[in-house]
């Protein structure tokens, strides 16, 4: 079984936020009302974070990074889920089962990366967005927690296609929407166990680091430091 992982090269990333939009439209993530957005309920699975500013003005650089679900190998969210609505599946993706979730938000409280978002309100979308729903992904009702799933529906479709064509999955068959969209190919995606894959090479690069590595969550999303 492959173990899917992602490496985001901060040296290449130009903070254009295409991954954020791609994620939003690929996964039918709810657009919340003006009131909700201003009260901290905007929903983004992929988010552009400004971590800190390095240096003093004018030799100052913000450290920005796109942050999606880290798809931890030792996820702290699944430990606390009382109903098995979130769990790690055989390919290492931490999946979220929306029809199972009771909305207790314990996983949100326990995620050190704050990647989980909650449907605080009824899903009432603008007309133009409703018509652009991705039919591969459900539209979550209110009251459930959701998060990045590495576009697991794309994995289903890709594996199905590969099986129908009587072949094995090939590296390029399944990539999440953010990876596909990234204009500068800053995000590489693939099988971490395959030592020859680009993502596994990059994850062992001297520049590579994981967010909050000290917590022992073993994220499968790693970053490559920017070269100064």
């Amino acid at each position: 079984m492959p173990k899917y992982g992602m490496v985001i090269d901060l040296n290449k990333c130009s903070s254009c936020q295409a991954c954020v939009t791609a994620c939003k439209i690929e996964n039918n993530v709810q657009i919340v009302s003006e009131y909700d957005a201003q009260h901290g309920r905007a929903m983004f699975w992929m988010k552009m974070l400004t971590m800190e500013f390095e240096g003093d003005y004018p030799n100052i650089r913000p450290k920005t990074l796109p942050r999606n679900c880290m798809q931890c190998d030792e996820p702290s969210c699944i430990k606390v889920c009382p109903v098995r609505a979130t769990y790690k599946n055989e390919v290492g993706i931490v999946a979220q089962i929306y029809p199972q979730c009771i909305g207790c938000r314990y996983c949100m409280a326990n995620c050190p990366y704050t990647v989980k978002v909650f449907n605080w309100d009824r899903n009432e979308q603008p007309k133009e967005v409703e018509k652009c729903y991705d039919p591969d992904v459900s539209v979550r009702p209110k009251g459930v927690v959701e998060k990045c799933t590495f576009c697991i529906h794309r994995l289903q479709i890709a594996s199905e296609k590969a099986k129908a064509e009587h072949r094995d999955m090939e590296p390029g068959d399944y990539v999440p929407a953010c990876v596909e969209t990234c204009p500068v190919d800053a995000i590489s995606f693939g099988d971490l166990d395959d030592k020859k894959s680009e993502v596994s090479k990059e994850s062992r690069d001297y520049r590579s680091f994981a967010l909050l590595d000290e917590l022992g969550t073993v994220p499968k999303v790693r970053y490559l430091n920017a070269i100064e």
Partner: protein
Amino acid sequence: MEMNRRDFAKLLGGSLIGFAVGGAGDALLKIPGMVVPLLYSGPHVETWKVTTCAKCPGKCGLRVRMIDKFPVQAFGNPLSPMNKGGICPMGLTSVENLYHPDRLTSPMKKVNGRFQEISYAEAYGILTNALSSNGKGKAAFVAQTDSAFMGGLIKQLMAGLESEKVVVDNFASSSSMPFDRAAADHPDFIDFESCDYIVNFGSQLTEISESPLYFSRSMNDFRAKRNEFSTFSPKLTPDAYKANRWVPVSPEFYVDVALGLAYVILTDGTYDKTFVGNEFKDFDGFKKLVMENYSPAAVESRTGVASKYLIETARKFANASAPVAYFDESILYSSSGMRNAYAVVALNALKGFAGYGKLKDRELPDFENKKENESPQSSWNSRMLIGDKDIKILMIYRSNFVFNSPGQDDLRKAISDIPMVISFSPFIDETSELADLIIPDHDDLEKLDAFSSTVTGAPVISTQQPVVKPFYSTVHTGDVIVSLIADLKLSKNWSCKKYEDYLQSYLKPVYKHGKGMLMNQQKPTGLEKSLHQAGWQMASYSSFDEFWQQMLKHGGWWDPFPQTSKYKPAVSLTVDHLTANGRGDQPGKNARGNSLKLNIFHRNFDYRGNMLRNPVLTEQFGMDKDVYYETWIEINPATAKRLSVGDRTKVKVKTGKGAFEAFVIYNPAVVPANIDVPFGLGHTASKKVYGVNPMQYSDAVFDEETGKPSLSETEVKIV
């Protein structure tokens, strides 16, 4: 047991209450919003169609995902040489425009200040009548299109109408303006392959440029080779923090900085002496001007740019084998507008434009006509509408210049004074709401068009095919203009009936020329490459019609192995260009006071004021700052403390044009003398208004030559 009426009533009442409670309780478990209805119920057949994104000058290839023949998503086309599969937020959300409820569904005519739906025939009748009775010499056209073909068509129409009052607002043409005037023509591309140092004057290469996605990729390759680049800009935008050095400087001082760099190079004597000797006109006058006014110390005292950075940058620039001093449209947005651009052109000339390239092969018709179509023959700009009593008819194609320019009230008044204003906008926006007649254009996904570009160093023609049949009774503006030219007999030998014919007439030579390939496969490598260069082609088409159909299907044509050469212009630069003759400005006159300045900055989401009607983009606009649906200002914490303004609070920002409310964000990277405010929000014509349009509050100075406003020189106070 006896039962009287009372008991019966009790029983009935009890059971009714029980029924109600039970029913309601059960219904509660099926609360609205708990279940979301099915997304689709059709057969769910998925198809993909290839087209080109027309949201910005980038000409990225798009793959549109269709479910049961309706577009649902758009992604980048991996075979397009412009974007290679990547796509920006604007392109990703292009489907939303198609379904937008605010789209105009039919031509509209203004009657007593209100728009009424009319038929296309009627609208076209009004248009032809107006143009034939009152058109010759009295019409003006403001267009915003990145298609050289559409731009050319518009110019042809205006030529027929004997009017020079036409502006095609096109990123490429704006940025090539100073090249056109200072030099013989302009370079086609930056030679990223050989260039090794870039000084960037204020352009947001990866966000707002001729092709943001191409530049993002090339800049990464450039940096991967450990090449350096420096950015002079008023704000630390995402582009600037990729630079090896960012030097904060206000746009009106670009001229000082560029000439300060030139000073160092001239004193070091490291400039390209043969080029300067042969090509640079009036070099001595230039040298004298620089030596007198632009010593690094003098520049530092005026601009605040440390002279050590100037010297360091200048030496790097001079020592590089192929340096580029890059600028684009944004350099014009200051009170020293054109002088900035000339100064950078002059700086490039000192090294002989070493990092720029030129396409050698000039057989391609489109690119031959490019200059004719795009270069500003007349120096008319939309600002000149104000006070021009001769204009009787104004036509506006997709440009929302009222929104994206300061001094809106003057423009609004000028437009309302014009007796006949015709807009071709598919939406009611701030500009088209002033029109008397709107003939809405198709949405980009319903439309046929083509774009040409040389920015990658390879000639590319990207085609936009109609992905869906038009939803409403909208009309392709190209078709309107083509039939206008035919009906009003504005051009001799006009044989086109539709815009498609017009496009084909331009693309036939490309077919005959025989080189290049369709965007249906990866760029050839190895043997294929050598075959290709030797002139062998694996054409998959045998006739022009087939070529045209294939081109539409695959998203375009390009020549992966063009013949290029170093760009060698004859620089006809005079000292007058750099001293802003006629304006009375002298070098160094733009001293900046101690007051706070409002710096309006653009983001990659919407720099033409058209895209932020898309819900996804609007929500995401301030996401990285965690501000939603409202205008924010970015302020240096030191400045904020001085003004006692708290982080994430609301303040009133006051300029000469009024005051607006904004949300404060501390940002240590902001120039202490500036308050940065993003452009994009505040669409007053849409149903729900989010935020404010900072342009409305800008006391901009307009550069007479370009008509571009200064965006960072408005004095501002925080109340």
